[in-house]
């Protein structure tokens, strides 16, 4: 379960002064559900997700992730979270196996458990052919599979995806979407940020529209369409974040 309570993050910039990356963000995601965080570039999606993954410390507010407080128990939160983003890269000089093993060990897995998880993930993700190839030599799809395996090697309860399909080809993006659905099927709590409306529409049980650091609207896709009177999620989004631009 994820429960964000008035999460706020203020960045201080010498030139621009105070920037509110997230401004009182609150939402709740139950296990077995996918919460879509929908927003334009710079809307505050990454800042919010980084606070949930304890990479950033909230200026005020807090969140409870998998039963642990992100401010008071960041190490425990990280032990129960799988974080996958376009910015989380692989070690180029390690092989896929070394990469996954490294993160398994850092997540406290013992060697027998690690071997078992590795075998399971290699089967599930069809990775056997390239497990011992260096990450720098892998194709984009192979890299993505390795990243997924790295993210779930410790079988976390909560999965955080920050624009995971950004810049990927259709087939690789589809495999990511399939994987996110599987996470939901396994009862994991999933939060998924994107600015691709079609992805959000297909994937998310609940959508939160974030703009200028704040959640502007929340609900199922159907509810949002009904509330705005629009038939298309993209039009809903535009009407909510920029009413002047709406048709």
């Amino acid at each position, binding site marked *: 379960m994820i429960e964000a309570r008035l999460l706020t993050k203020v960045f201080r910039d010498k030139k621009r002064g105070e920037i509110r990356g997230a401004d009182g963000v609150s939402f709740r995601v139950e296990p077995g559900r996918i919460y879509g965080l929908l927003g334009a570039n710079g809307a505050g999606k990454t800042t919010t997700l980084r606070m949930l*993954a304890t*990479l*950033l*410390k909230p200026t005020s507010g807090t969140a409870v992730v998998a039963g642990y407080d992100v401010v008071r128990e960041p*190490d*425990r939160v*990280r*032990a129960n*979270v799988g*974080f996958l*983003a376009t*910015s*989380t*890269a*692989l*070690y*180029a*000089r*390690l092989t896929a196996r*070394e990469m996954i093993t*490294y*993160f398994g*060990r*850092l*997540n*406290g897995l013992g060697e027998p458990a690690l071997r078992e998880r590795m075998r399971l993930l290699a089967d599930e993700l069809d990775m056997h052919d390239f497990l011992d190839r260096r990450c720098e030599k892998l194709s984009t799809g192979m890299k993505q599979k390795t990243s997924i395996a*790295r993210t779930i090697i410790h079988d976390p309860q909560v999965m955080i995806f920050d624009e995971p399909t950004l810049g990927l080809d259709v087939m690789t993006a589809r495999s990511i979407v399939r994987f996110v659905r599987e996470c939901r099927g396994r009862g994991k709590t999933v939060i998924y940020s994107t600015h691709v409306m079609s992805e959000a529409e297909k994937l998310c049980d609940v959508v939160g529209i974030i703009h200028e650091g704040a959640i502007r609207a929340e609900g199922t896709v159907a509810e949002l369409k009904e509330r705005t009177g629009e038939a298309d999620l993209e039009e809903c989004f535009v009407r909510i974040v920029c009413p002047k631009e709406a048709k």
Partner: protein
Amino acid sequence: MSWRVIGTIYGKELRDSLRDKRTLVSTIVIPTFIMPALMLVVVKATAVIVSKAREEIPRIMVLGGADSPGIRAELEKTGKFRLERASADWKALISNKRVRAAVEIPAGFEGALGSGSAPAITLYDYQGELKSGLAVEQLRNFFTGLRSRATARLLADRGLPASIARPFEVQEANVAPPEKVGGNLMGGFVPYFLILLCFTGAMYPAMDLTAGEKERGTMETLLCCPAARTDIVLGKFLMVLTGALSAVAFSLISLSLSLLIIGSTIGTATAGMGPAGAMTPTIDLLGILGVLAMVLPIAVLFSAVVFCVCLFAKSAKEAQSYMTPLVFIIIVPCGIGLLPGIDLNYHLALVPVANVSLVCKEMLSGVWHWGYIAVIFGSTALYAAAALALAVFMFRREGVIFRT
């Protein structure tokens, strides 16, 4: 703090670094081959140049001395000089290296020799030019011999023994064993090289493990795991330290072998220059071990400092731009051991890098000031601990890790 996690991070960084050509070049290839090779080339080339310069019979010019034909004849008879015809542009000829030196014999010099009232001889050279200096040295030896013979004749004419002008002899004897001679000759260079190589050994792993990871996006991947930030810093720091110490270890082994060769080169070049010169200098093993012990805290200090600087940088390129001035900042105190006449004191013992440079020079020449050694070891360890604490502090700051 978890040693298991630190070990896991260190193991991964070690494996990763061993696959990084740039790190291998800075920690193994340069210390093992390039620096000693440069040193060898410089020393060998110097020995060859000096030896060739000594073999040359210098062209000299005699100015004046028309009424001293005997002196001119004696100069020619030695076979050590080629006498050039006097010319008005003799200064230009010396400057252009057509003539190595000139000697001015004043009027009536030869005639006045017998009376003991001969006027002064003037020798002209081009100061700082090796061959000109050697020519003047030969001329000085010739006129010193001439003066001795003239003195002896004057004394004999008065019925006095020649020994009256030289009532006693002064002899020199070296008591320093070969390794101490080697220490004195090369004591300044060895710590200079080791400290610099220690720094460059730390530099590339630090850049790769901090700014490089930020740039490649792997830092964020690592920060997602539950490992404590302190453990991550320590694991990475240990790898940087390994780089610094590897550079020192490889360069020490390589330098020891090089010094054996250099020692014999110097021994050959100085042969015939008295008992001290005939000796082949070597380096004291105990001194080398002492240097190694003193380099340990400075390796920790360097590793922590470069870690902090590189951690602050957004990219490897930015880190590199910080490293260049830092190298110059290190070179100045590091080179203090090369300067003559600077002795260690308790004030200097607190100056980082300079203190280690000076104490290593002393240890290699067989001088062990335990008080200074303790102060230097302690102060350097203290600075290193402070720099490491700063690295941990910086790693916890979002403004540093996510600096854009």
